[in-house]
């Protein structure tokens, strides 16, 4: 049997403060201060997911006027930052016909793609690039990691709905129509990935040398892979393209790490390479929880997300807070599965449990954005420069409806979004929303996301 992933989580990371007391990479893409302008931090884009929808009358605010002054219990945790949030009702999901029997396989996979899988290739992965990966394609080159993918649970849920590939169940990020992006579930691995060349000891110079060697080695291997590719039939070539793409991406990442190491060396030598604002908050500390309490575990993942944004290690993240099916919340005092409770038939006991689970998930999101709000960056806070979207792929889990998908957006994306509002009558679909958010993050789009037909001008500042 597979050993529980929890064992690693219990480990504690040490010496973190030291390794992170580094300047950040503003010179790699932050606004050009050479011309003497004030620097403008980049916009970061984050997505956090909860499956199975909400209890509608306990989620949708009663009216726009009292949204800020008297939030529903679901939003209580967001109260301190509610003026930085935007809630929209009226955004529909992708209609799922002809996959009517696959509501759960599609809730997560359509969430950031706003597209249905190809019906004639349903047993394979064949959908479209997701919004986060579109963003990563544009801003990923500026950071050590093009994007960060996190999840709370392993992405190996097996359930066949409408003959769809099981991967659709637990993945929201797609690098291309055929390539899923797996998520990390182990905080220690996430940390290593963000900030250290894993398992590489020794002084900085040695690490730089090893990195350079890795990069050259990958170059050689890449050449060999191209040779191999030429001998393969075209369907195999496709498969190999994923490999080639991944190698190139890792090479670029190693280059970014090398760059950071050089910067650090300069800093050490007294040459101030950083152009960061002197008053910016220092990097937050990460503590890996000892137990396996869900909230603590989700919060360390949120912390890592915050840290990655704060240090500009990446500008795009997704966090699958919980997966469709197979999840329960013992911490809330009941062992029932989230999914079975959502088919509540309006029975009060079950409705209350679903509301509690929703509240819990929003509270984890609130934890993250409140933390961002508490960090100074340039003239404002880190949250000011983020667009954090929280949402679900169903409106009502009981009936599997997708008429008004629940979305909360926190952060104004550097002033692009007018927050502190509830828009009860937004008319459009989830593709429109994703397209709008990408545009607000400054991502140039050559075409809209999925089924989008427009942007929501009303959410913009």
């Amino acid at each position, binding site marked *: 049997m597979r050993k529980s992933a929890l064992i690693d989580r219990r480990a504690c990371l040490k010496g973190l403060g030291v390794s992170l007391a580094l300047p950040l990479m503003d010179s790699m893409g932050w606004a050009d201060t050479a011309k003497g302008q004030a620097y403008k931090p980049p916009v970061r884009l984050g997505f956090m997911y909860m499956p199975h929808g909400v209890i509608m009358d306990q989620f949708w605010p009663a009216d726009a006027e009292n949204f800020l002054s008297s939030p529903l219990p679901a939003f209580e945790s967001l109260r301190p930052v509610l003026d930085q949030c935007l809630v929209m009702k009226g955004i529909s999901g992708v209609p799922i*016909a002809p996959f009517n029997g696959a509501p759960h396989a599609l809730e997560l996979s359509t969430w950031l793609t706003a597209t249905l899988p*190809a019906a*004639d290739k349903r047993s394979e992965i064949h959908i479209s690039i997701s919004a986060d990966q579109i963003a990563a394609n544009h801003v990923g080159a500026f950071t050590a990691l093009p994007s960060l993918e996190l999840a709370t649970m392993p992405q190996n849920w097996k359930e066949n709905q409408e003959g769809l590939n*099981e991967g659709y169940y637990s993945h929201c990020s797609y690098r291309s129509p055929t390539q899923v992006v797996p998520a990390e579930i182990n905080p220690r691995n996430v940390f290593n990935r963000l900030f250290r060349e894993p398992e590489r000891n020794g002084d900085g110079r040695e690490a730089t040398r090893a990195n350079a*060697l890795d990069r*050259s080695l990958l170059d*050689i291997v890449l050449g060999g892979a191209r040779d*191999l590719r030429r001998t393969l039939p075209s369907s195999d070539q496709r498969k190999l393209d994923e490999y080639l793409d*991944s190698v190139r991406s890792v090479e670029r990442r190693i280059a970014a790490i090398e760059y950071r190491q050089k910067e650090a060396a300069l800093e050490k030598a007294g040459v101030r390479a950083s152009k960061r604002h002197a008053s910016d908050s220092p990097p937050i500390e990460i503590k890996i929880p000892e137990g396996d309490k869900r909230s603590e575990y989700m919060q360390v993942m949120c912390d890592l997300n915050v840290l990655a944004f704060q240090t500009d290690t990446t500008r795009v993240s997704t966090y699958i807070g919980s997966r469709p099916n197979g999840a329960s919340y013992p911490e809330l005092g009941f*062992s029932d599965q989230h999914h079975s409770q959502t088919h509540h038939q309006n029975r009060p006991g079950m409705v209350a449990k679903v509301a509690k689970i929703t509240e819990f998930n929003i509270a984890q999101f609130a934890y993250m954005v409140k933390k961002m709000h508490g960090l100074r960056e340039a003239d404002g806070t880190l949250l000011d420069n983020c667009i954090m979207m929280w949402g679900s792929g169903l409106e009502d889990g009981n009936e599997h409806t997708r008429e008004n998908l629940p979305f909360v957006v926190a952060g104004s994306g550097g002033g692009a979004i007018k927050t502190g509002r509830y828009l009860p009558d937004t008319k459009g679909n989830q593709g429109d929303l994703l397209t709008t958010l990408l545009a607000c993050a400054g991502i140039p789009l050559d075409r809209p996301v999925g089924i989008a037909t427009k942007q929501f001008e009303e959410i913009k500042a």
Partner: protein
Amino acid sequence: MALSNRIRGVSKAPVFLGLFLILCLAGPRGARAETGGADYAELKADAEAFFSDRVTPFIQTYCISCHQNRRPTQAGVNFSPALKDPSHAAFHDQWKRGVAKVKAHDMPPQGAPQPSDADREMFSDWIAKLKYLSEKDPGRFVIRRLTKTEYGNTLRDLFGVEPSIADGLPDEVSGEGYLNSLSPLQLEHYLTIADQVLDRIVAPEDAAPTEVQKRLFGEPAAPESGSREAARDIARSLAKKAYRRPPTEAELDVLVEAFELGRQNDLGYEPSLHLMLKGILVSPQFLFITPAGEVESSTGIVPLDGYQLASRLSYLLWATMPDDELMALADSGTLHEPEILEAQVKRLLMDRRSRALFDGFGAQWLGVGRLENQVFDPAVFPQMTPEMREAMYDEARLFFESIVRENRSVINFVDGDYTYLNETLASIYGLEETVAGPEMRRVQLSDGNRGGVLGMPGVLAATSFPNRTSAVKRGVWVLEQVLGDHVPSAPPNVPALEEQDQGTVANLSLRERTELHRTNAVCANCHQLLDPIGFGLENFDAIGRWRDRDGNGEEIDAAGELPGGERFSGPEDLKAIIAGRSDDLARNLVEKLLAYALGRRLEGYDEIVVDELMQVIAGDGYRMQTLVNAVVSSYPFTHRRIEEERSSNEKERSD
């Protein structure tokens, strides 16, 4: 087939469509007996004629006006391309759904011209002939990446490291529908793991080389004596192992280049070899199972080369690379020969590494893989400790392995009269007096209710709720996993009786409550099939203990009747009825194993393949090794179709 055919007879009322439809889908299975010895070409010709004379006019008269090449197509159904190429896998589901809709009088819609009952029946029965339209075809096959498990095991076999070295890789779904893509995250892990492997196998500087080092790189050479040529020879032997086929000269050039890279960076001879090995471990030839030579035609059907076959076989049964014996047979080009292949299947199955077949396939099939992380209410079932869960998993594993290694009939999966217990698990059976100690050992069972997977605690627990049993889940499990029927999910807006309003039904027993299903036409179709089976197992509580009364103190009534009229009074009878469906049992296992082996769903021509395999398997008393051997030597397992991607499709999607 028997169960689902029967249900058709009783469902005349307008009912919830999806349930009805999909239960009917098992229909084509009903035709399987016809293939016995029949001439396939004749059947194909007959099917083609029938399609053009009867089916095509039917579609053209009743369907095409809405479902044709025009956007938007009605309900995403388009018969224009399907009429031209009816057997194409892409249209399979569409045909099946279409037939089901017509059969249920759901299509053509009200107001449109309606076919006669005879025509409707003709169209419904036609689906059984669909498979004969398929060309002989092993199915699409694309090079695939090693799974996380395979990757870890392969490193173990190559370097003697613990497979857990791969634990950091992202989790993945394996088997049918295997998620076979590669992302930067994985590649980063591969690079890191390559470093870790080298750290473990390379002795510190100035220390004597490890045994693994000597085996891989030969005796240490004097620092200056190590030449490019020597490196190339080492590359040749390393790559043949790691790539699981002889490397090409061009591939050796690349590896020597990696070696040279080390030299240029002032690494010594040995460290440069290590760098070369690292290059091997992040190469696609290691991470993917690739063909040994260039494929001649750019499209068509080719047999797998011997090395690919060796890998496919070895990764199926052992979840690791081929060993020396398999590689030698690949070298000699004889692995394809039926007797040799069969002997290898037997050898691999008898080896303890074939445990991988249970961990990868059997555990998923029986559902016990999820036990480890399944939630049980600790207040109700404090017995479900990690030790108990492990014992339950091991019981299923040892039982599965006994059927494999002793070459028993697969019917024993249901009617076996022995099991494997340790002291912990014996308490579930009430046998704690007779079994002591933590080791699992074989135990002969005298209680006819026990034995076989239907009375196995791991299976019973895996199909339960955290605090009680679920007759519905167990019924679904038996139908889908044991008999191979497909049961659709309940529609979202239909009350889940498992979660019924406590107020109105407080005075009813669970059985009475569940029986409400059957008073509701929407639910009745499936539940009159599911519920009796589930209730037949109600004497087993949510963790598999025998009980005569349920949680509320009500006496258990495990008697029931299946829709066809077969009656049973409890688990023992039910087991006998299910075991009697030997053909369904065996066919289900063949289909599941073949899909797992191919890493894809079965479709089109595969149905004919399964028909043929069933002849062989039934002819040998449904023995397990015969079954595995039939799958391994089957046409789709030993061949591959390679094709140019259909670019028109791509274009369509990007519009």
